[in-house]
């Protein structure tokens, strides 16, 4: 298992932990899980940027990804302080994450095509990570773009949206699982 796959496994474990914690907090504690997602968004960003920077050969691109981490952290902090406090959904940070992740994933595809690094691209773990990221975060741009509006709508009326979101999330983690079994980077 390579470095990338270890980071991915850790990220998936953290995601599981966060989901369990959020569930427990809301079901048994009656607390809002929004604060956890404020923190998790940043943690997820850090992990994904680290994973992507390990898979690209372009040093400039790798440096840009690493440099964006503290900038994103700063933005997330400003978002909490100025626009969306901990008890509100962090749609701003989530949309920004989604847009950046889509750009990074598409850039990875473009760079990899130019480099001709793989004989079969679908056998690389990085490919499946990008597929999962692209599928989930592209739909998240739409979802969280209307996130604040969706909160105002009754869950019964917006259930189809959340079902699709869950489906894409499942595909997202399914792709990550496939990435764990592919050739290490």
């Amino acid at each position, binding site marked *: 298992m390579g470095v990338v796959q270890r980071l991915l496994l850790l990220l998936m474990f953290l995601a599981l932990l966060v989901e369990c914690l959020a569930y427990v907090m809301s079901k048994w504690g009656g607390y809002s899980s929004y604060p956890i997602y404020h923190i998790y968004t940043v943690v997820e960003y850090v992990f994904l940027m680290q994973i992507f920077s390990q898979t690209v050969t372009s040093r400039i691109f790798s440096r840009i990804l690493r440099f964006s981490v503290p900038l994103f952290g700063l933005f997330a902090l400003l978002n909490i302080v100025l626009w969306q406090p901990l008890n509100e959904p962090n749609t701003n940070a989530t949309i920004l994450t989604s847009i950046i992740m889509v750009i990074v994933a598409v850039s990875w595809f473009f760079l990899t095509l130019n480099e001709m690094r*793989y004989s079969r691209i679908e056998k690389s773990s990085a490919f499946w990570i990008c597929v999962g990221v692209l599928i989930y975060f592209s739909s998240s741009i*739409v979802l969280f773009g209307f996130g604040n509006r969706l909160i105002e709508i009754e869950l019964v009326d917006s259930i189809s949206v959340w079902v699709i979101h869950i489906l894409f999330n499942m595909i997202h983690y399914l792709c990550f699982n496939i990435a764990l079994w592919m050739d290490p980077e």
Partner: protein
Amino acid sequence: MDGSGVAGEVNAIVIGMIGMFFLTLIIILFVVVYQRKLLKQERKHKAAEEAHQLELLQATIESQEVERDRIGRELHDGVGVMLSTTLMYLDHWKEEDEEGKARASKRVDELLHETIDSVRRVSANLRPVVLETLGLAEAIGDLTTTVANASGLNISFRSVYDHRLSQPHELNIYRVVQELLTNALRHAEATKITLEMTASADRFFLKYEDNGKGISKDQLGQKGLGLKNIESRVNALNGKLKLSNPSEGGLLITIDI
């Protein structure tokens, strides 16, 4: 809130999400298909390059065998015959009278001198002495003079040789020039040949031009043994070879190392 308005908003979000999903699928599919296509092209190009290198190697080996064959025949038919004749005279030496011995002595002397000249010619062809002692510019100058005198061609040679190359490099370039001149004599039907050579610390440039019949596109694609030899030697020197037919006719070859 208007129910149909809410449903419309929800539907718009759903359509948006599904639309993004299909767009993503298209991108992923494009990447996989395009990558396969690029890989196929690269493999094809690599195979062609390997086939070409093999061709050059075979040409080099064939050329070496031809050269060895020629040297072998020259030694056998020239040196071998003369030494055998000398031995024959020496074998019958005791049987001859004084006059006969004098004639035989003179003949043996002539034969030995011819043998020495023949060996020197073969040796000079294998490793030109001028190249080793005076350098590339003088050796090529000497070669062009010899060829011009023997063939009647008008051959001009200009050089700016400020930076002497290593011996193996000089020998390779000398062989290239030999091959160029041989090709010109055999195939070009030229009356005038121009050679220019410049060498500095970081660049060597050789230009060959003649006023012969040039080279056709077919001949460029299916190069003869001589051109393949030249290409092989230039590749070994990490150089670039360019062949073209100038507008005024003839053939222009440039070698840039």
